């Protein structure tokens, strides 16, 4: 018995899919995944001027939005509601002001202009939708970033599609979804150690999670970071300040019922910081978390402990 795997780049990240099947139909499905992701990226990327998202951001209005954009915007608005506005798609102007105005490989790593704080309006007020016409309207000056939400959403959907053929796992840059029948053995998933900021050395994983379904994701300020105005900047915006989150959490990993839910929760914990983030995540029985603080302290929630491999 073998399983099939495919690796490729998608959405600015490494992607990998596995399905526990060796049938021809599974082979065809997994081989089609790179093209499937490319089509979603063409719709959802803010870095492609002809994407549906870029057209929406440019004009502030889009009628007859296709299913993918509609669904991901819907997921982003639901995420904003569930996190009290901490994870919101309206951060794009602030993200660009912080320096993340092009794909990460091309970000100016040492811009001397200080970052400006840009207001991030509440998503529920800034984004209006008309379901009948499938139209999306943005308030004045509002532009959306769907980055992390899009990754989680795509990982979940791709895993479900592969799950028709056997237990499946799809990893998009660390947002990992599992679907299909329960695997014969759980998927072993390493939780990466962010290590000291600036360290290029790959550290041993912090822990090994054993999961059969749902999702796991990590949000961190250890990698996508740069220098701006003499200070450091990163890609996680705190909508309360309109600047990169000033937080004592270096990386937050969350296990949840889907990669999308885990991605949104991990970002929320990172923005809130270790105290408020811990309380927020612990209040939700569907989530388990592991936090790495900037001082190197590692915190594991009791629910997380139950998922971890023990020697």
């Amino acid at each position, binding site marked *: 018995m073998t399983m099939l795997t495919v690796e490729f780049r998608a959405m600015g990240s490494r992607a990998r899919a596995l399905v526990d099947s060796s049938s021809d139909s599974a082979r065809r499905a997994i081989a089609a995944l790179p093209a499937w992701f490319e089509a979603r990226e063409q719709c959802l990327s803010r870095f492609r001027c002809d994407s549906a998202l870029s057209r929406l951001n440019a004009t502030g209005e889009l009628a007859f939005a296709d299913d993918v954009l509609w669904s991901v915007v819907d997921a982003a608005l639901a995420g904003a509601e569930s996190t009290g506005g901490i994870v919101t798609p309206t951060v794009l102007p602030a993200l660009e002001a912080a320096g993340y105005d092009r794909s990460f490989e091309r970000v100016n790593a040492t811009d001397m202009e200080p970052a400006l704080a840009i207001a991030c309006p509440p998503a529920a007020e800034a984004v209006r939708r008309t379901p009948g016409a499938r139209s999306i309207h943005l308030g004045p000056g509002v532009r959306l970033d769907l980055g992390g939400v899009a990754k989680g959403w795509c990982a979940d959907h791709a895993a479900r599609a592969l799950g028709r053929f056997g237990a499946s796992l799809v990893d998009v840059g660390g947002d990992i979804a599992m679907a299909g029948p329960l695997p014969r053995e*759980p998927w072993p998933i390493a939780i*990466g150690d962010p290590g000291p900021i600036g360290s290029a050395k790959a550290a041993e994983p912090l822990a090994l999670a054993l999961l059969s379904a749902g999702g796991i994701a990590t949000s961190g300020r250890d990698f996508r970071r740069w220098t701006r105005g003499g200070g450091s900047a990163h890609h996680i915006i705190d909508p309360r300040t309109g600047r990169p989150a000033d937080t004592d959490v270096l990386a937050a990993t969350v296990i949840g*019922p889907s990669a999308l839910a885990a991605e949104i929760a991990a970002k929320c914990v990172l923005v809130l910081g270790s105290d408020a983030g811990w309380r927020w995540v612990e209040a939700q029985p569907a989530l388990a978390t592991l936090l790495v603080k900037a001082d190197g302290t590692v915190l594991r929630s009791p629910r997380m402990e139950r998922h971890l491999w023990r020697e």
Partner: protein
Amino acid sequence: MADPRSLGRWARLALAFGAFGATLAGWCAFAVESHGVSAAPSRAWPGLAPIASGDARIDALPPMVTALTPSPRARNARRPIPVAVTRSSR
């Protein structure tokens, strides 16, 4: 001097081995097709078994997420090899 009949037998054996090798190579090539799809070893992580649904430890677990733990008979099982790593986007 070699017996011609013996030489023929060796030639037939060599031919059979050659055919077997070609078939094997063909299967290997089939396993690595376009898009980089490849056959990976089957997942058979040693020493792991799911917690029974009646186990009190999973009562508070999130829906859709199943915890697994080394079974008592496999305390010495080696650490499973991860199939993926979660970390901030790379």
